[in-house]
């Protein structure tokens, strides 16, 4: 037949388990221990409170700009929960919820956001990468780590995060192609929050779903309701297990929404209709999860109240510790020259001494900042 349709063996499915009212599809409902469910919920509460507090601190000039999570908690926690501690976590720049789940201390995040490299604190055992600011540029790193895992014959997996805007970058394309060519144990988790700063999805790409971008690589790809923590978990878990078994990568598009501003430097009212935000407020992942937990009898209103208060206190304490640390840190110039190279070349050492001399001279003059 001169004109024939090529069978691509590829279709895109959409998964949802918990609906907007917190009603669950019992067939698909995953079996998550109560303790974990409640931990996830507590973390959601904490992240919300933390976001809000950071906004205040930023407006007061005590920290710099940052990217809030609000609206994307389910997408981040549902997926990161599926990851083992010994698996690798490759964030973009908005994954505060996932990063807190991995064990980051709030005070460290504040130190970092206040402009200090020391806020990045990893141990030798850490398998979390630092945040990556250039959009999509971290995706190939996750692919490389997965390649390392495969070469070593380890059974770890990499979970790499990025946004809808990131899918327009060449780095996304090259990395996903690589991952599939080598069948690497990596899961790509795209948080499609419908905006890249002021650019809405339909100006970002003409494709109907982002998931279908995986078809370009012959990669297993699917869409989930990203505000449904159960669906995100189920999809990620399955993808991770496939990856762990050597069945290659998966691309997951989690449909979610950035309820807040892009960063504190941004004013979304300039470009985005209030209606749209309202629509998405109704799909807020937090109350939905809360309803589910209440319906299952894990949670009651009092617990929510107490835990909300506990979150405020936890953040209070983190802020106090952060401020104490800042005091201690001073403006030590040495930090500029540390970790530049394994060992600084002589002229860099001379530059270091130059700065030290300046700072000393200033101190001797009794000058502050």
């Amino acid at each position, binding site marked *: 037949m001169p004109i024939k349709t090529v069978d691509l063996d590829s279709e895109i499915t959409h998964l949802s388990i918990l609906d907007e009212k917190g009603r669950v599809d019992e067939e698909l409902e995953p079996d998550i221990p109560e303790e974990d469910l409640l931990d996830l919920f507590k973390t959601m509460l904490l992240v919300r409170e933390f976001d809000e507090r950071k906004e205040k601190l930023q407006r007061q000039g005590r920290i*710099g*700009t940052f990217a809030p999570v609000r609206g994307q908690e389910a997408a981040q926690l549902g997926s990161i929960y599926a990851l083992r501690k010994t698996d690798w976590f490759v964030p973009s*720049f908005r994954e505060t919820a996932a990063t807190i789940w991995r064990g980051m201390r709030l005070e460290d995040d504040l130190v*970092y956001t*206040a*402009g*200090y*490299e020391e806020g990045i604190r990893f141990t030798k055992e850490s398998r979390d990468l630092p945040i990556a*600011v*250039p*959009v*999509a*540029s971290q995706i190939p790193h996750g692919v490389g780590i997965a390649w390392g895992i495969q070469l070593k014959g380890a059974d770890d997996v990499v979970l790499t995060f990025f946004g809808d*805007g*990131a899918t*327009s*970058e*060449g*780095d996304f394309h090259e990395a996903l192609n690589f991952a599939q060519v080598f069948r690497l144990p990596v899961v790509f988790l795209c948080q499609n929050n419908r905006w*890249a*700063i*002021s*650019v809405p999805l339909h*100006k*970002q*790409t003409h494709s109907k779903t982002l998931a279908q971008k995986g078809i370009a690589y012959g990669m297993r790809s699917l869409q989930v309701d990203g505000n449904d923590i159960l669906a995100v978990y189920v999809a990620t878990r399955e993808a991770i297990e496939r990856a762990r078994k050597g069945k290659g990568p998966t691309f997951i598009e989690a449909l979610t929404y950035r309820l807040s501003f892009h960063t504190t*430097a*941004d004013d979304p009212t*300039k*470009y985005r209709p209030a209606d749209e935000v309202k629509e998405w407020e109704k799909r807020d992942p937090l109350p939905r999860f809360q309803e589910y937990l209440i319906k299952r009898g894990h949670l009651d209103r009092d617990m929510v109240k107490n835990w909300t208060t506990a979150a405020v206190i936890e953040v209070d304490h983190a802020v106090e510790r952060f401020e104490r640390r800042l005091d201690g840190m001073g*403006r030590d*110039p040495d*930090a*500029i*020259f540390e970790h*530049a190279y394994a060992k*600084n*070349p002589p*002229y*860099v050492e001379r*530059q*270091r001494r130059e*700065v030290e001399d*300046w*700072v000393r001279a*200033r101190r001797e003059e009794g000058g502050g900042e």
Partner: protein
Amino acid sequence: MAGVTMVQALNQAMREEMARDETVLLLGEDVGVDGGIFRVSDGLLDEFGEKRVVDTPLSEVAIVGSAIGLALYGFRPIAELQFSGFSYQAFHQVEGHVSRYRKRSQGRYTVPLVIRMPYGAGVRALEHHSESREAYYAHTPGLKVVIPRSPRKAWELLKASIRDPDPVVFMEPKGLYRRGREELPKDRRKVPALDGAEIVQEGEDITVVAYGAMLYRAMEAVKTLEREDVVNAEIIDLQMIAPLDSDTVNASVQKTGRAVVIHEAPRTLGVGAEIAARITEESFLSLEAPVKRITGYDVQVPMFAREQLYLPSEERILQGMRDTLAF
């Protein structure tokens, strides 16, 4: 306050050029509805419509690459990259094509585009938002690299860059975006062509070379120097670091015999290196002291809490001038 900020001046320059020449258009991430993340294109979408002020997908390669195509076709695109720190995504398009089409096509195809990008420190932002790596572009033959020091200069130089027949990398010192105001000239039509450095203050004893945000620190330091040490400095704003107007610099050094050069970028292979080399080459016999470079250090730019320790401070500049004078 009277006058306009640099952000407003840039906005005004684009507005006027777009009104004057319908082949001028602006493309980039968030330049339309949002008016640019620094508001440099505020209002342009309303005025010129979405065919000429275009929000693009998040793709630096396609922004620069399609701007090349637009320029080949006869447009004069202004491509905005959100920060110089993300311009390297498209570096191969600039190195491989923007700088070469004229040569490659024996003059048939030219790419008179302007790539605008904020650069340098000063906005308390995350990593990759504070670097000064203008030397990458200045080392690339075929490009012009322009850096304005003030609102008025920003207006004038951006207009000249848009009209220039060669591709221009237009680097905006983001620390100056909202620092100070200046009146724009009454006659908005006269725009001098891109042309080298400007002597912003004449003097006899030492030549001070700078550009962008560091020029102000240099000028402040010079004020102190002149007051306390009773000397006169000649201050040169390079304005363009490619092609580099070393003739103006050398003429000055042949008068003063001494020079310092100041920039934010790392010292090694920064613009100061080229200035020092050209002064040594062409003014050797006039030189009474080595050319002093007062610059950022040869390490990764620190996050913003320690930025000021990294940048040339007024004190460091003052000291550098004194060392040079005392040599």
